[in-house]
């Protein structure tokens, strides 16, 4: 995390591709992609959401129809992060329609974004940034060797991915820069009011970091801490979204773009991006639903 610069927005950062391929990829896929991923040369766009899916990620309508040598893809993905900057995407398509069982018949693919039949349209966010895209597939052929894992097991694979997505440190890092700027602003000998807020933030950050580490430990031990990861994500997102509000309440600083101090600009960046924090990896309602299920309430 480069100090002094607002962190860049990654809704669905590409921390998934490596673990995914390690876990579900063919030997050939690993050899082809992992070295470039680990050198940081290759990033993947992530294509999960569709225009009408919202939080209901399994309601996927983009079809991948089995044809000779591969799959013929038709449909539209939205919120595809960095598709305009990436060579490949990891995408979830419907390979089989199973009536009333939307979680079945989905499969994961690696997609070469330069393939014929793909068109990419930018989505500009409210702050004027371009991180996301709508990706349209028309009779796009994806070769057989780009299927990841098993045909029809896509949902199971994806929920594992979401586990990673939900526990990662970007859960609390996006707003860390504002806390740092606040400390700088408050100076070495802050008043009681500023000190109390800095202490509050620190207590939460330290605890979130420990919670993330414990999920990582569980993952490394081969466990599948989906519930725990959802808890960490919910706690982290809720905290993160409180940060700009609490900082404003303390300082009354104006959130700025373009001009102003680093503090004001970081506040401006985060105020505008905070609404997106709870969208990455599932909305707050969906996450809390997962937790409630884990508690036995549903």
């Amino acid at each position, binding site marked *: 995390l480069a100090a002094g610069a607002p962190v860049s927005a990654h809704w669905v950062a590409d921390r998934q591709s490596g673990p995914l391929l390690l876990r579900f990829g063919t030997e050939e896929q690993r050899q082809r992609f992992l070295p470039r991923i680990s050198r940081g040369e290759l990033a993947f766009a992530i294509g999960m*959401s569709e225009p*009408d*899916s*919202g*939080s*209901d990620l399994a*309601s996927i309508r983009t079809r991948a129809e089995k044809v000779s040598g591969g799959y013929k893809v038709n449909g539209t993905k*939205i*919120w595809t992060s960095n598709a305009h900057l990436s060579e490949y995407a990891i995408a979830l398509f419907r390979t089989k329609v199973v009536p009333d069982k939307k979680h079945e018949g989905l499969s994961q693919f690696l997609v070469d974004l330069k393939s014929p039949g793909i068109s990419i349209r930018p*989505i*500009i*966010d*409210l702050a*004027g940034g371009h991180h996301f895209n709508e990706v349209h597939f028309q009779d796009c052929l994806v070769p057989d060797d780009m299927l990841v894992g098993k045909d029809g097991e896509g949902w199971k694979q994806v929920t594992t991915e979401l586990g990673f997505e939900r526990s990662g440190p970007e859960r609390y890092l996006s707003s860390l820069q504002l806390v740092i700027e606040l400390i700088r602003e408050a100076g070495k000998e802050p008043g009681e009011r500023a000190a109390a807020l800095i202490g509050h933030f620190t207590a939460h950050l330290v605890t979130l970091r420990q919670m993330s580490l414990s999920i990582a430990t569980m993952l490394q031990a081969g466990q599948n801490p989906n519930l725990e990861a959802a808890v960490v994500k919910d706690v982290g997102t809720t905290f993160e*979204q409180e940060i700009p*509000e609490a900082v*404003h*309440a*303390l*300082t*009354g*600083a*104006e*959130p*700025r*773009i*373009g*001009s102003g101090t680093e503090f004001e600009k970081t506040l*401006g960046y985060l*105020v*505008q991006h*905070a*609404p*997106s924090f*709870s*969208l990455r990896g599932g*909305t*707050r*309602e969906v996450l*809390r639903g997962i937790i409630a299920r884990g508690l036995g309430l549903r």
Partner: protein
Amino acid sequence: MNELRTILTETCTRLFTDHVTTAVLEAAEKGEWPAALWQALEENGLTLPQVPEARGGAGGSWNDAFVVLMAAGRFAAPVPLAETMLAGSILAEAGLDAPLGPMTVAPAHIDEGLSLARQGSGWTLSGRATRVPWGARAEHVVVVADAGGSPMIALVAGGHAKAEADGSLAREPRDTLVWSGAPVVAAAPLRGRLGPRPVWAGGALVRSAQMAGGLEFLLAQSVKYVTERKQFGRPLAAFQAIQQNLALLAGHTAAAGMAAQQAFHVVERTGEGGDATFEIAVAKVRTGEAAGLGAGIAHQAHGAIGFTYEHSLHFVTRRLWSWRAEFGAESHWSVALGREVAARGAEALWPHMVSR
């Protein structure tokens, strides 16, 4: 709300519906002046509703001003309507006539000062003011300035200041203006119902109405969205969590509207020498808090779609985030209010509230 006010609301709604389209909002963010909108506002006497007719206004009340500003906030109208109203009032209270055309006020920061110097029978203005709303675009600027130890109100024409362009989160102009002996059109000693700091207090007042209006938009827009949008096979509105959140938003919206309305009501009731600072502080604190929480709820209800530039939600939420910080954020006004209440003593809290 009486009948006349209902009619006024309807007039505003119609006017803004016609003139504040997404295209107008997007163009304004690129620096284009919405001339048709401004012209319509002036033609309908909506730019100076509470300024006496004798001073160039529409001769209505501050309660009318509240209605117009609520509507302007609801539509995120990209013009200095609040600033013009405030400028006109500050002039009128000081016994000066208000000109036509968009105006603004300065300094917008409590710790900045301007000064007047005698030149013949008139005055010249010098000093630097940052973050002046629509500073470079306003045809006149009304300033509070020091004239040899006495505070005065002065009217200067636009174009006499060196302007550096700057902007708000909502990409509205917030320019730095530097005057160096600029000619003053008219000046008079500071007086009037907005108290000793009319730009600061009046700025907080008008922003509270705009925020209350913005919140009404957020609520209406969120209700509309969750009613139309389906997820997991049913409308979002059917989810209890969504319902509960929007009920909370409705509460903040109602509270913000009440707080702002009451402040305007007391300003209207208060004659010269009266003091509505208590209610203005209440309004700025309550609407500012509601704005922050309300923007969060509205964005949460809208999910990803509300995060796109294409969707109009952000025209209002970005303004709310700016407005709450301008002319004193909650942190400023709550400390001031708390000190005032504490100085009066614990036992005086309730009697004072009831006496207002």
